């Protein structure tokens, strides 16, 4: 049936595809973020309780969702690499980590800038904030561990173990607001209940989520291309590409 997916499981065939996909998703990300910011700043009304400070939600929640989602995808690829010893899986896991760390930092930073006007503090050691901070340390730990091991395949395996053990933190972050008495509010949007926010606010948040998602895909694919070039620099296809890029 149509596409032979295994064709794209080797770096030399995935490399050009990743380049085209990164361009498409980068363009989609720009369009979605422009639409999401328009909704967030010019359509969504002022919040009755929080005034304009709530507008941080349009980056805070999408970034927090992406920080958890990317970790699960990273652990998935790391696990696939560990189980099947496929080259590309480990490269994908390594490519995801910095972008995941970036979104985690953005979630923490914007949360801090939202907490100050609404809670009166930049930071509090409650379960949601602390588990999200641990997520940042998991990403940074994964990157540091891989950077410390010279042989890339051994680095992949060591990183995969850390990534898989750390995945237990993701449900802890997500359910922390239910399991513990936190200063952080519960979910305003979930799959099981109708949202507790104005429709235009939810729309802006969801469109921004797509924007961050598409950006994340583009950034990860661009980084995966770098990693392929670095690890396979002795190969024929990489030399061919480097000559053409000159």
């Amino acid at each position, binding site marked *: 049936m149509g596409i032979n997916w295994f064709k794209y499981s080797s770096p030399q065939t995935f490399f050009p595809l990743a380049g085209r996909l990164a361009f498409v998703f980068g363009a989609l990300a720009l369009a979605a973020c422009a639409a999401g910011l328009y909704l967030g700043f010019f359509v969504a009304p*002022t919040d009755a309780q929080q005034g*304009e400070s709530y507008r941080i939600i349009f980056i805070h929640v999408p970034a927090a969702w992406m920080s958890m989602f990317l970790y699960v995808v990273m652990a998935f690829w790391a696990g696939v690499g560990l189980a099947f010893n496929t080259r590309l899986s480990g490269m994908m896991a390594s490519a995801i980590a910095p972008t995941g760390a970036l979104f985690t930092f953005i979630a923490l*930073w914007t949360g801090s800038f939202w907490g100050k006007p609404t809670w009166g503090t930049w930071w509090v050691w409650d379960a949601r904030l602390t588990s999200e901070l641990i997520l940042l340390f998991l990403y940074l730990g994964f990157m540091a561990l891989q950077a410390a091991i010279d042989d890339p395949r051994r680095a992949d395996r060591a990183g995969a173990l850390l990534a898989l053990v750390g995945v237990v933190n993701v449900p802890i972050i997500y359910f922390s607001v239910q399991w513990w008495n936190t200063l952080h509010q519960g979910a305003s949007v979930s799959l099981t209940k109708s949202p507790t926010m104005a429709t235009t606010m939810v729309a802006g948040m969801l469109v921004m989520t797509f924007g961050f998602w598409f950006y994340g895909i583009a950034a990860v694919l661009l980084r995966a291309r770098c990693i392929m070039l670095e690890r396979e620099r002795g190969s024929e296809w990489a030399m061919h590409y480097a000559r053409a890029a000159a």
Partner: protein
Amino acid sequence: MGDALREGGGVNWGSLGNFLAMGGYGLYVWGSYLVTLALIVAEVVLLAKRRRNAVGRIR
């Protein structure tokens, strides 16, 4: 369409100054958005640099 949007609770900021002030929360709103933008731009620049370095090391 434009009218429907406005009826749906569209925001009329009035002036650029009001928009930047964000109802007194300018520091917090723009402190969030500008840092986010700066980090994303930095990631894209670093990715372009990393690709150039990778290509340079092959040749």
